[in-house]
Each structure stands twice: as C-alpha cells, then as structure tokens.
C-alpha cells in the first residue's frame, strides 16, 4: 500500500475520532448547558422572590402610611395634606425615601412632598405634570395586598431615577372642609432596588437583573441591555420577523423560561425571565452572556486541538516508527535478496558439486551396467542408477523451483515429436511402475498429430511429475495414462492429458495443499515416499506459464485423476498411429545398451579438471570408437586445440585457474587455427537458471549437463559430428574382459567372484593377487622364523595377516584354516601351532605356486602396455630435474610434493634403464617409505 494511502486512511480515522469526540462532547455539553440554564432559571426564581418580597414589603410600608392616614379620616379626624405629609416625614426612616401626595383631581398633577426640591429649600410642592407616569387616569388598585408600582421615572424633586409605591388616602380639604382623595406615593430610588439584586453577582459574575413592564419598558435596567425598552432592544439586534417578535413578547410575559438572543455586540446571551408574582405587569429578566453560562456547544476547541495534536503526534510517531521498520524491512529485503542471491549461488555450487560426483557415480555405474555380466552386480548397479536418478530429480526440482521463484523460468517453444515425448514418458514410468508391481495402462488417441510446437521439456516435466506422483502414491492397482486431443483452431489442437491412479487418493481438505510448494500431503503417513513436495507446484507453475492448469479429481482411498488441457500448434498432422502397440513392441525388444553410431575417424577434445569425469566420458563413448583427447586444464586444452583439428570440443565450465568461458575466448582468439569452426559444447554441472543463456551468449554452441546422459551425449555428437565421419553402430560382439586371466578361475582354492567382491573391482583384485604373490615368500619365512624362535605373538600376527589377505583374494578355506590357528595362537596353544602350522604353510605354498603364472601375465601385459605406450618420452634433463626436485623435497620433508612428482613422472615414457628405479620410487611412495627415496635416487647418480 502506498504511503499516501496509509496516511489518508490514518487521517480519515483521525477525522472519525474527532467527529465522534465532537459529537460526544457536544452532547455532553448540551446536557451540561441545559443543566446550567436550568440552574440559571432557578436563580431567576430566587431573584423574583427577593424582588417580589421587596416590592410587597415596600408596598406594605406604603399601605401602613395610607392606613394610618385613612384611619384618622375614618375616625372623624382626617388629616390635612400637610399633616399627612408631616406624618409620613416622621414615619419614614430613610432620607432617600420620599413621600409624595398627589391630588388626582388636580389636572396639573401637583402635590406636596416630604422633601423640598433640591433647587429650592423652601419649595415642598411636587408636580407630575411633565412626567408621563399615570397616563390620563390614575389607574391604581385599591385592594389590599396589591402592589401599586410605578415605572422607573425621574423624581421631580431630586432628579433621581425612582420607583413609587402608591395607595389612596383620604385627607381633609381645608378649603371645603370635605374629605378628598389623594394618592400617597412612597418614592424610592431605583438604586435601592438594584442593591437588593447585587448579591447574585457572587454566583454569576456577569448576571444583570432587569425589571420590565408588559410593554418592555425598564424599571430596572441592566447595563448590557441597551435602549429604554427591552422589546425594542431585542428587535434592534436580532433578526426577528413579527412572528418571532410576538412569540418572544408572549413568552417573556407568560411564564418562567429562558431564551437565547444576541446582544448589541452580536454576542449570544441568555435571558431567563419570570413574571413577578402578584404584579402581572412586571417581569424580571436575568441577563448573562452565553459564554459565561454555557460552554461552547459547537466544540471544545482546546480539547479538540489537544486530541488533534495528540493524534497527529501519534500519526507522526507511527509514521516514523513505520518508516524505521520500513527501513529495516528494506535492509532486510536487501539482505534477503542478497541471501537469495547467495542461495542461487549456493544452488549453482550445489548443482555443480552434486552433479559432478553424480556424473562420476552414474557414469561409472553405466560402465558397470554395460560391462558386467553378473546378475548380482547388475542388480546393484541398477539400484544405483535408480537412486541416482531420484537424487537427480530432486536436485532438478529444487533448481526448477528456484528458477520459477526467481522469475527466470522461460517457456521455449520448438517443434517436437509427440511420439518421442511419449516414449520418454512411458519409458520412465514403465520402469518405476514395474518395480512397484503396478500396471501401466495407456490410452493414446491414435490421431494425435505427430509434430507439434511447444515446450516439450516443460510438458514432459509436467507429465513426469504427475506420473511420478501416481506411481509414488499407488501401492497396488494401475496407472492409466491417457492422451487425447480436440481441434482448437485451424493450426492448433487442444491436448487432453490425464493420469488416473488407484492410489491413496486425496482428502478434500488436503486439496488446497496440493499445489503449495514444500507441502506434502499426509506427510506422516507418506514419510517413506521420497520427494521434496515441489513436483506438483512446479508442474502447476509450468502449466500456468503455458496458459493452462491442472485439474484434480480424487476420492480418498480410491484414487485420483490429474488432468490438464494444453493448446499446441500443429506442425505435422500425420497421426501418431497405434502408440500402445508400438510401445508393447518396443518393450519386448528392449535390450541392453548399444551405441547408436560409430565414428572411428572422428576426433573430439574433452577438457575437464576432473580426471574421473574424463574417464567416464571416455568410457561412455568407448564403443563409438570416437578418438578422444583429454585435457585437465584450460591451458592444456588450448595447447591441444592449437595442435590438432577436432570435430567437436567439450569444454568444462568450472575449472580452476582458467574457466571454460575464458578458455573458449582464448581458443577463439587463436589465429589461423584448424578449429575455428569446430563446435564447442559446454560441459557443465551448472544447471541453475540462466546459465544456458550465459553459455550461448559466451560463444558455446551447445551445452551438456553433468551427470552426462549417455543418450544426450550421443545425440549431441550425432548433431555436431561431420556426417561423413558417422558410421552405423558396430555389430561386433561385446568385448570380454581380459583383466583376470582364465587360469585364475581354474584355481580350486580361490573363489574369484568373492575376491572381486571384496576387492571392489577386477583391477584391484588383480593388483591384490599380485601383491599376495609378491609377498608370499617373505611371509612364509617370517612365520617359520617366529615359530622357530618361539615367538608365539608375532607368529600369531603373521597368521592373522595371512588370514586377511587370503580371504581378500577369495582363498576362503585357507583363510578359515589361518583363522583357526590364529585363535590357537591367541590362546597360547603352541602345541596346535606346532602340529598344524606345517599343513597351513603347505596349503599356502600350493596356492602360491598355482598363482605364479601371474608373473608372466603381468610382464606380458606390461610389454603390451609398453608397446602401446604413446606417452611422451621424457628428456634426460627433465628426468634429472625431477630427481633433483624429489631429493630436495625429501630434504625438506615435503613428501606430498615427492608423491606428485613421482606421479607426474608416470605420465612420461622413461628410458629402459630407469624403469626399475622409477618402480622402486613408486613402491617407496606407495609404502610411505620416503627414507629410502634419497638412496634410490643416489643409486642412479652413482
């Protein structure tokens, strides 16, 4: 996933978290705000109670004044206006409270006051003429308990904003002597009422209490509420149509409640309102800026900011961590790539290292199979071949898997013969099926086109894998290989391949493991079945690359059918005919290996640093009679390349000092060479992916992998050798081995086969016989000498050696006789030795005498060998130098070098008079008797 996507997803999650927080906080805030508003409303109720109590109290005081005056009137002693005012002047406590007595009948609304006007100390008159306080009528309630309150107005006596509580009184009209009605006003500064409301500021810092009448005019005016009328104020600063306006006035003048509005600054504020009890015309308003009462209901920016910063911090932190991990992962990926490269290198090395000895094993085994006549040996050899091939298959699987994994596996389409492919497949599976006692059934459509275009090798691998699996997982029954086709297009057919077995089947739950690399189904149960678990995975990969896939039908315990379809281009529509019949015939006619051609005039050069490989190579082609020159290094090969004309050159890739590619380049750069057009085939154990391209691009014409497939080797030669040098295969009878002389078989005391078995080969057996014969005289003398000297211990040791060596050459009876005397010797049974040792030595002597003709055979063979010796003759100077080097090496105790020099001398033909010395040197080296060597060489010098 791209970084930007990861960041975008993170930011989206952040946004969701923030959205949730906002929603949650807003919900909580809304609840909290609602609670705060409720609390504010409760405060309003308290304020209303205080104001109401105050107003009732003040009205009550006014009423007391009035009652006193009225009682006087009722008692028949009415007060005059002056007397009434005088009474009030005495009754009132606070100097700030005025008493006004106004006569309603006076249209000028004049009266008298308890206080003089501030402007004139003599003037106690008061006039409400210019103050719109009463309207046209004095609408004042006369009922007890009713608060008769004026609006806030300017006291005409002192210019102070005041309110007045009113009641009617009856006073004596001095001019008429009658009672007349007057209005008694208890006038108090508004500030005294405001003072009652100050304490609320302790609870709410910025609360402002206002009192308005039903028209919105203020009695008490909060600082923030502009205008002289609250309703006008509302209208001025709030976008309100008539409906909103009317609802607002209705709400405020009806009941307890709270509303939001904008103040003159455009800020949201909350107005809690409540009517004053028993004063229907007055309403208390509690104003507070919304921010003072409620938290921001939109979002708590601090919280949001901190959370955002936190989340961003987390994102950055995670991003850094992620980047750090990515960096480490990148480093790990680089390391993994390096490891993968190392793996490839390892596989390459492994390929080389395993295939090289495998070449020797299988090659030599092939020799055994060709040359041996003994059934037992052939059986062993066949097992080696089977195991070797299995091992090769495993190696090939791993290499293929490696190629597929590295994306270096390519499909190379070429024309191929379908019958040929079938042959290879059926030959492979037939052998294996027979070994397990399984019946191989073939069902091949006879109309399948003969030649098609496709990657024969990969198709063959796919089918081989399926067939191998079928054989592996089928204990009894049959394997049915079916090949059919249907027309696909004008030039294509769809091959229908299926393999049905009667094997163990696959459980449905194991189906998914079938094509997974390194997965082996029911591994515990099938642990004895060889395999890497790569076969089906590779097959599926190949088919996928070819646009197909494997279908599997299986019933657990009953068997499976693996099938696939593959579109192939048809090159030759000739039907293949009845393949089953052809195959049956071929099986019947199957016989031992026979060379496919002979080319006695052809000469090839094989360059490989491994002599064993060269030996195998030579022997594989021995019957083709091709002349083979070998070289064990690049330089040596180049010398030969310059000297002789070759028809084909096989050049090993991995060689010390100068590898195959370097050697080839040097060869190709040789001017005027006879081999300018000679095909050079890379002879390699390297089967790792991509190597083919390297070889071809490096100038090789073809390549041959080790272990060498004899068939492919001969096929390559058929391809590259000049046609005029190729002759049909020889009809000569098989050469019989001449290594063991016939008379040996005639010696009764020896079992040649057992001897060969013990020695490992005929050659070693012969060498062992020669040694046996050579040492016989000395051994006999030693035994007799030790016995004569009474040295029982050494006598027994020598008898023990006689036992071992006799058994090694197949003289089993003599060995058993020696063993019995050895035991007697070990037991200190000298008497038995004295008694029977003579007999043992007689039999030993008899056998030695019978073997003595072997000396003649050896000399004859050497003579023959000398005659056929085409080794170069060593010069006198070189020989002297070699002896000198040997002596110096002995002086410096470098016996390895001594051994190497002696061995290298063997590659040259020596003068007759030096052969004895060479043999003496060789024997000394073989016997590790290096102290003798300077003497042997000195003898020469003397």
């Amino acid at each position, binding site marked *: 996933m791209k970084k930007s996507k990861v960041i975008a997803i993170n930011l989206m999650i952040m946004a969701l978290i923030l959205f949730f927080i906002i929603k949650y906080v807003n919900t909580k805030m809304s609840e909290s705000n609602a609670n705060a508003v409720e609390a504010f409303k409760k405060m309003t109720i308290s304020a209303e109670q205080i104001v109401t109590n105050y107003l009732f109290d003040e009205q009550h005081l006014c009423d007391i004044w009035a009652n006193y005056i009225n009682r006087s009137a009722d008692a028949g002693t009415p007060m005059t206006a002056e007397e009434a005012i005088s009474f009030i002047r005495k009754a009132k406590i606070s100097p*700030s409270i005025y008493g006004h007595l106004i006569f309603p009948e006076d249209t000028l609304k004049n009266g008298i006051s308890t206080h003089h*006007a*501030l*402007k004139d100390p003599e003037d106690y008159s008061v006039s409400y003429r*210019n*103050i*719109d*306080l009463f309207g046209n009528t004095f609408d004042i309630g006369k009922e007890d308990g009713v608060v008769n309150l004026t609006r806030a*107005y*300017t*006291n*005409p*006596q*002192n*210019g*102070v*904003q005041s309110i007045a509580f009113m009641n009617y009184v009856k006073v004596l009209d001095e001019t008429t002597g009658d009672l007349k009605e007057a209005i008694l006003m208890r006038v108090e*500064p508004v*500030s005294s009422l405001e003072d009652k409301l100050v304490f609320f500021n302790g609870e709410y810092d910025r609360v402002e209490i206002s009192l308005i009448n039903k028209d919105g005019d203020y009695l008490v*005016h909060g*600082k923030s509420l*502009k*205008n*002289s*009328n609250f309703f*006008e104020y509302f209208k*001025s600063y709030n976008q309100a149509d008539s409906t909103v306006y009317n609802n607002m006035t209705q709400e405020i003048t009806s009941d307890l409640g709270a509303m939001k509005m904008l103040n*003159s*600054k455009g800020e949201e504020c909350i107005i809690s309102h409540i009517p004053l009890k028993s004063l229907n015309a007055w309403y208390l308003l509690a104003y507070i800026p919304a921010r003072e009462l409620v938290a921001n209901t939109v979002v708590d920016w601090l919280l949001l900011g901190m959370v955002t910063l936190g989340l961003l911090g987390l994102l950055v932190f995670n991003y850094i961590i992620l980047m750090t991990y990515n960096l480490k992962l990148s480093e790990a990926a680089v390391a993994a790539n390096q490891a993968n490269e190392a793996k490839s290198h390892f596989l390459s090395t492994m390929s080389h290292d395993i295939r090289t000895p495998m070449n020797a094993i299988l090659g030599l085994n092939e020799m055994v199979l060709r040359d041996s006549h003994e059934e037992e040996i052939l059986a062993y050899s066949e097992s080696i071949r089977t195991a070797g091939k299995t091992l090769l298959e495993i190696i090939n699987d791993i290499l293929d898997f490696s190629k597929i994994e590295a994306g270096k596996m390519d499909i190379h389409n070429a024309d191929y013969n379908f019958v040929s492919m079938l042959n290879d497949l059926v030959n492979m599976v037939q052998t294996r099926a027979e070994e397990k006692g399984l019946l191989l059934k073939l069902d091949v459509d006879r109309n399948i086109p003969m030649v098609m275009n496709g990657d024969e090798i990969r198709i063959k691998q796919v089918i081989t894998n399926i067939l191998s699996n079928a054989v592996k997982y089928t204990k009894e029954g049959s394997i049915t290989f079916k090949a059919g086709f249907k027309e696909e297009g004008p030039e294509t057919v769809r091959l229908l391949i299926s393999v049905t077995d009667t094997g163990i089947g696959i459980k449905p739950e194991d189906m998914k493991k079938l094509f997974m690399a390194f997965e082996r189904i029911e591994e515990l149960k099938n642990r004895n079945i060889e395999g890497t678990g790569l076969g089906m995975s590779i097959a599926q990969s190949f088919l996928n690359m070819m646009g197909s896939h494997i279908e599997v039908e299986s019933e657990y315990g009953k068997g499976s059918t693996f099938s696939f379809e593959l579109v192939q281009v048809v090159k030759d529509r000739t039907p293949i005919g009845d393949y089953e019949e052809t195959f049956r015939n071929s099986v019947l006619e199957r016989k031992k290996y026979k060379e496919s051609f002979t080319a006695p005039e052809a000469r090839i050069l094989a360059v490989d640093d491994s002599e064993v490989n060269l030996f195998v190579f030579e022997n594989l082609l021995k019957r083709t009679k091709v002349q083979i020159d070998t070289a064990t290094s690049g330089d040596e090969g180049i010398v030969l390349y310059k000297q002789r004309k070759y028809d084909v050159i096989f050049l090993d890739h991995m060689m010390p000092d100068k590898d195959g590619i370097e050697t080839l380049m040097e060869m190709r750069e040789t001017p005027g060479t006879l081999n300018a057009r000679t095909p050079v085939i890379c002879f390699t154990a390297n089967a790792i992916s991509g190597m083919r391209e390297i070889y071809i691009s490096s100038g090789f014409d073809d390549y041959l992998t080790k272990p060498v497939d004899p068939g492919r080797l001969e096929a390559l030669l058929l391809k590259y050798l000049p046609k005029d040098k190729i002759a049909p295969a020889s009809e000569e009878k098989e050469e019989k081995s001449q290594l063991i002389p016939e008379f040996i078989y005639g010696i009764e005391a020896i079992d040649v086969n057992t001897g060969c078995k013990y020695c490992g080969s005929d050659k070693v057996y012969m060498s062992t016989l020669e040694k046996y014969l050579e040492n016989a005289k000395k051994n006999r003398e030693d035994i007799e000498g030790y016995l004569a000297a009474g040295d029982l211990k050494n006598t027994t040791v020598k008898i023990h050696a006689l036992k071992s060596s006799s058994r090694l050459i197949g003289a089993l009876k003599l060995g058993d006789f020696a063993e019995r005397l050895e035991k007697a010797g070990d037991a200190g049974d000298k008497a038995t030795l004295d008694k029977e040792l003579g007999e043992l030595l007689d039999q030993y002597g008899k056998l030695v005498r019978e073997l003595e003709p072997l000396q003649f055979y050896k000399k004859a063979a050497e003579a023959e060998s000398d005659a056929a010796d085409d080794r170069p003759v060593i010069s006198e100077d070189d020989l002297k130098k070699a002896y000198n080097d040997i002596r110096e090496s002995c002086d410096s105790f470098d016996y390895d070098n001594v051994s190497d020099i002696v061995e290298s001398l063997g590659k040259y033909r020596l003068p007759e008079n030096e052969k004895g010395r060479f043999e003496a040197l060789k024997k000394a080296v073989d016997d590790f008797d290096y102290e003798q060597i300077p003497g042997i060489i000195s003898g020469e010098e003397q």
Partner: protein
Amino acid sequence: MLRFSRFKRSILITATASLMLFTACAQKPDNSGEFKPGLKTDTACSIKVAGNYSNFESLESEFERFYEYYPNASLNYVYLDDYNNTISSALMSDEAPDIYVTASWMLEDDKMGPVFENAEILSDPSLKIDLDCVRKGAKLTLENGDINMLPIFTRSYGMLVNMDIFEKNNLKVPNNYSELVDVCDKLKAAGYETPIMGANGTTVAGMYYAFDFPLFCYDVIKNPESAAPLNAMDKSAGEMMRPALLKLKDFVDKGYLNPGRCSTEIEDDYNAVIMRFFEGDVPMMLGSGDMVSGTLKRESKSEKFQSNPFKYKFYVVPIGDDGGYFLDAVNLFFSVNKNSSNLDMTNEFIRFIMREKELGNMAQIKRLITPTNDFSLDEVYSSLEGFPEDKSFSYQETGLNDAVNKEFRAAAYKVANGTLTVDEAVAQYGSLWED
C-alpha cells in the same frame, strides 16, 4: 436682540474661531484618529450620562467601543423624565450624572443656571480634547472663549430627494433656484403633481422652514444691520422676509408646493413625513435633519418602501440663485459635571468620543449630521461633503433671536396657505406668531 446677552454667560459666535483654532493648535491634542488611552486601562469606574432621549443607542454603542480600551469602565445612559426641569435637580442629587445633555437655548434660560454652574470647562487644554474636529458652524464658544458644551449631533434643513425618480426621469438634482424650478416643471410634466412636499406647519421641521428660512438667514447675514430691527420686532424689518416669501409664494402658485394636499396627506412633521416619503411618489420631501434621522428605522415599517425600495439623499434646498444654504444647527450638546466623582474617566470618555470617527459613528447610527466635516460615513448626507463655507452658517451667526425665527415661520405658513399675502405678511412683522 440676542437674549443671552442678558445672562452671565454669553457666547461669542465664531468670530473668534480663528483665534480658538490657533489656541487649539497650540495645545495640539492627538487627533491622528487612533485613540490612545490617557489613563490606566484597568481603571474601574461608573459613569452616568443623563439625557432626554428615551433611547440613545448611538451613545450606547460608544460605551461598547470605549470598553475596548477600558474594559472595567461601566457607562450608563439614563433618560430623565421632564429633563428640562429635572436635570438641575439631578445635578444636585446624590446620583448626579457625570455627563449630561445640554442645548444652546439653556444658555438663555435662568432656570438652567445650575446646569452650567456644574459644567466643566472643556476647552481646558489640559484635557486634550480635540475641539478642532468640530466644524465652525457647530462650535459653541462662550464669550470668554471657554467651551462647556460639546456638539454631538447637528441637524440642518432641506429635503430628502428620491434619487430613483430623478434617475428614472433623467433629471439631475438641482444646484440653484432656476434648476429647481426647471426640475419641478419637468416633474410635473412627468406626472408628479406636487414635486415638493412636507409638513404644512410652523415648526422648524415644517416644510417652509426647510424651504427658505436659510435664504432669509443668508440675507440677514449679508445685511447684518438688519438683525437688530428684526430682533426688536420692528415692523419695517419685515421687508427682510420678502425675497424668501416671494419665492415660497411663487412655488405655491405654480403648484410645486401644495399646502392643502400636504395637510391632508401628512399629519405630522416627523413620522408622517417619513412614511409619506417612503410611499415612493414624492420626488422631494422637505424637512429637518430630525426627519432624516428617523428614516432608517422606518424603512422596515413602510410596506411600500419594502416592496419598492429606492435610493434617497439629503440636500439643502437650492433656493438661492447660486445654490442653497446650509443652516448648521446643533441638535445635542454634552456637558460634563465638574463635580463628577469620576471626573478623570469622564473626561477620558469625552476625549474618546470627540473625534471624527466616534462622532461620525454616532451620527451614522442616529442618522443625524455629524458636527465634524467628515460626512463620508452616511451616504444620505454625502451631498454636504465640501459644501461652500461661505454658504454654511449657524443660526447664531445671524445674530437673530428665537422670536424672529418664529415670526418668519408664521409668515411663511400664512403666505403659503393664502391666509396672508406677501405684502400683508411683511407689513405684519412682529405680530405674526400665535402661541
């Protein structure tokens, strides 16, 4: 004669303006426009402003602006009932206002003595009040050169012009008398039967006062010797009214003005005038600056204006041959109670509002004319921008007293309504006004 000559305080009309200007310059207050607090900004105080406006929202907005500098200050406007009678007492009470509204006439009224006894001399250079921002015609200076009243709003007299009608009829607002006559002819021809309307009354807000009283004043200023006989109600002085009355009579005769129709359709000189104008069919509506101040709030109350809004502006009537005359009249003054318990902060507030910006803001909200020369804030008054100084004057500059004012208003009303001829009105000068 000017009655204020009888009082202890007399004013020296701006003949000494240049001297005062020099003085003011010598005490150069910071009038860069940006207010710089002169006291500690955390000063707490409670300042009360008393006045006769039931609502003084423009002042309350200044309170809010002042709070930006002095957040702990608390200013409060108090409306006093029967202001003219109660302000004297209020200033003597325990709850005396710190700032109070005054008017030029108060200087002439003995009963208002306590009002000015308590007034602080605001021209005291130590107060650093920017008096230069006030234009010549709005500045009221005592004889001794002191200033104790600061103009807050001014008004003038003229007409509201329905600009859409003029635009619709491809007419330009007239600049002189002949253009005015021409425009009226064209408007009549275009179907506007009475091109000029107003309140048919004798008040200063009535149409005759706005129509040609400034012309009368201008003539008096040009003939200063006429002031004394006019003030003395000398019958012969009535001749000074003739030119103005003749023009009025001519407009009535030509049907440009129709007193009868105005009486029928316009009940009062304030609300009715405005609402009638908003009906949208009156090209020119005569009135005072007070009329203009009421327009803004009444736009929303006029259904016709809401449905067919139009653009309008205030112009002085181009009654002279070379243009109109700007009669500058202070609508409202502020005085400071020198006994204020928060005198420093009170002066600081006065220093704050006595700047072009704040006075302009207040005038804009109230939609009255600012006492400064900056008319840019309210487009309605934009026609006054750069008005020729020689045609701008205050009533005080005429040297006429209030009685002359009333005599002219009565003469104009009677001539326009046909009660008197021009000759009769001129002849009856001194006995025209009826209470």
